[in-house]
């Protein structure tokens, strides 16, 4: 969608929504919110960005493939559950620590990192579905030529460096 208004508003809106999604994630333990809903908000933020600037822009902004993010989230959640083994308590038991940070006590827990994992899984899965669907529906969006992959570059390098092979070929 190529409207000027959306293009102008989108970056700010996306940034704001992502910030909000993290806020929702963190307040979840005591007030309405949590990982699921936070992940959904973040996914919609990136959807808005995608509608305004196209799939390529979102992929570049995210740096990682969304599925990688989802995988990392699942890994994080599983690890959060497994930490309890080290303390000899059953799987998925919540463990808390209260370190002091700039004079304020900050409660941290495996429950929180578990919820963060949930957030990442939801975000990654939904964004990857949305991007994959969106990518195909706008095939003309190929403004930026894709970088040549290492596989495409390698044969040239090899040819130059391998004199025996070149001799064979000239024969």
């Amino acid at each position, binding site marked *: 969608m190529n409207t000027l208004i959306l293009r102008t508003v989108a970056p700010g809106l996306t940034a704001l929504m992502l910030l909000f999604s993290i806020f929702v994630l963190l307040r979840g333990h005591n007030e309405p919110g949590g990982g699921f809903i936070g992940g959904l908000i973040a996914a919609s933020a990136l959807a808005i960005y995608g509608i305004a600037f196209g799939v390529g822009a979102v992929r570049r902004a995210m740096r990682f493939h969304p599925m990688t993010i989802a995988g990392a989230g699942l890994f994080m959640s599983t690890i959060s559950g497994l930490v309890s083994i080290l303390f000899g308590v059953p799987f998925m038991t919540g463990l808390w620590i209260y370190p002091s940070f700039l004079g304020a006590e900050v409660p941290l827990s495996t429950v929180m990192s578990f919820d963060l994992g949930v957030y990442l899984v939801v975000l*990654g899965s939904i964004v990857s579905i949305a991007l994959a669907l969106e990518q195909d529906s706008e095939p003309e969006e190929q403004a930026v030529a894709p970088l040549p992959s290492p596989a495409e570059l390698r044969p040239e390098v090899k040819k130059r460096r391998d004199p025996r092979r070149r001799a064979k070929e000239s024969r």
Partner: protein
Amino acid sequence: MAAMGPALTFCALFLPFVGALAAPFAITRFGDRGAWLLALFPALAFMHFCGFLPEIAAGEVATGGYAWAPSFNLSFSWFLDGLSLTFSLLITGIGTLIVIYSGAYMNGHPQQGRFLSFILLFMGAMLGLVVSDSFLMLFIYWELTSVSSFLLIGFDHEREAARRAALQALIVTGGGGLCLLAGLVFLWNITGVTQLSLLVHLGDALRQSPFYLAALLLVLAGAFTKSAQFPFHFWLPNAMEAPAPVSAYLHSATMVKAGVYLLMRLNPVMGDTPAWEILLPFFGGLTLLTGTMLGLRQTDMKLILAYTTVASLGLLVMLTGFGSPHAIQAAVLYLLAHSLFKGALFMVAGAVDHETGMRDVTRLAGLRTAMPVTFLAALLAALSMGGLPLFFGFLAKEEIYLALWSGNPRAVFFTLLAVIGNALMFALAFAVALKPFIGRRAAATAGVHEGPLMLLLGPVLLAVLGLVAALAPGLSHRYISSPMASAITDEKTVIDITTMPHWGMPLLLSVLTVLLGLLVYWRIDAARAGMLRVLESLGPGPDRGFDILVAGLIRFSVLVTRLLQPGRLEIYVTATFIMLAVALLVPLFVFGEMPALPAWPRDMLIQEAAFLAIALIGIIAVLRAKDRLTAIVSLGIQGFAVAVIFLLFGAPDLSFTQFMVETLSVVILTLVMTRLRLDPSDHRPLGQMLPDAVIAIACGLGFTLLLLRSLEVPFDMRLTEFFNAYSKVIAHGANVVNVIIVDFRGTDTLGEISVVMITGLAVLALIRVRAGRRAP
């Protein structure tokens, strides 16, 4: 030693498996000579089991085992009596010879290591089968022998015949194994025990049970398929596609006897009933006759032997079910004799094949000068198979006639069967063991010479053993036959027959058998031609029936797949929703659970009514929308209205999530719609719309009624109270919903996010597949 006993036996039981793991490395490292090394595994087990001989001969049993799954009353436990011990010795003893023999027979084969590995794997399975005490262990080993037999028959997997034979054997014996499992479950249910050693004392309870016949038929299905009884006999000759060591070991000496073993094992428990004494002799006798008749037609050495094996198995089943102690003793003697001479003859056939490259008895002749040692082994084995005096086969045959001959009509009938069967087997034995070695040397076998030591050791040893065991009857009866017969009859039995012929009816019948056999041998070509004509007039047999069955099964599964997976999304979705409506509505009607229609709430607030109206407007808009995009967005309106209603009724978390889900569904649905490149609007005839509308209304109605009904049930507040009370105290969170998600029920959530991720991956894969197909 006493304390170490069980542990050592446990090791002995697993030695073959260890050998199976080591086999490929041993062959790669040492070549053919690796077989000597590998033969140590079964040889050690053999020696261990020999140590039990005095104890078992004294009438004791050796048991041992370890708990496996105590909560299910399952144990890995073994039970060694005369029957198990004899089988164990046969398996490990002949197994040792077979491993050595395979070293030479398969020499130079690129997959010799794999072959030996399979052989040892089978050995472990078979050994486990015969010592198993627990039913489950018996079944697992039973199926494992089927699987390893499949691997061995199909060893030469590049030939189609081998693949077919392997599959056939697996289907027949594996299918029988499943029947056996059902039979064992019956036994367990009737008697309440899961161990063979405990079952022995519960025979009367079992025989009086109304389910006795069902259990018997299922067990017989297992035993008959494994032991190739008519009409399942066809897989065994086809299994001759396997290399000769396999035929010698699995398909004559050991595996095919598993069915007979099972029948012998269950004889004290299930035997002595009319059903047992009718079914077993009938099918056994039929198999004896079928096997010898079909064997007469063959010219291939291995196939002749295979059919005589079928016949011998029939004879064993017949004797086991005949119902007299003498018949059991005869079965024991014949089983021992058969394992020795048939194993030897198969190895001879393999050696001849290995040296000359052919197995056709009509073309082979005059090999006695080229292969004298092989000839000697063949002759000794054939004399035992023919049941001539001084050989173990003679003891068996005397005992058979002694058991069968009692004068009543039933006995006369079976005696006649046995005489015909034995006479034909006599003729076939010499057709294989004598014919290729005498006469004028054929030109095709000019440069043939004797096989190496490794190829000769097995057949010679087994053939000589058949003579030695008969010449020292006291020893062999005391340690092997009598304990085995005692185990089968479950009472002290002493076998005392010797090789000295004594005047009587059995000897007369023996002479008759030999004369008849000589006659058939003398006219074997005419007999073969005659049999061929008879078989042609009979038409195709069960082997062809198997092909028809398999082809039919494939056609049927294609039909079912087409019906259930037509590949059209429309049909899947329609079927899913119809089933949903049925699942929702039918129980409500059938069980009379229809809810009472609730009264319209009087004190409805204005904002509640307003959002209800908005939801309704959204739905009407969906129905009236001209194009798809409008419909999707209108559906969003309805969803948002519902989210607001959640909020009004005090469920902020739910409402929050509902908002986001609605937003994203609108976005993703729109993307899917654009991606599918459908027409912007949807024009369908009334004929299509009406059924869809009916299904939609039925689903909606179903959900409404179900929700109303569940609201009528008094709500159990215990969980709510628990979570409210403890959320803050033990989980340090004030938001009960989130605490449940991430802490109280965290494992559920872990499962859910895994599902989310897998769904994402699946969708991604589907999109990629389509994209890949579109871009050439």
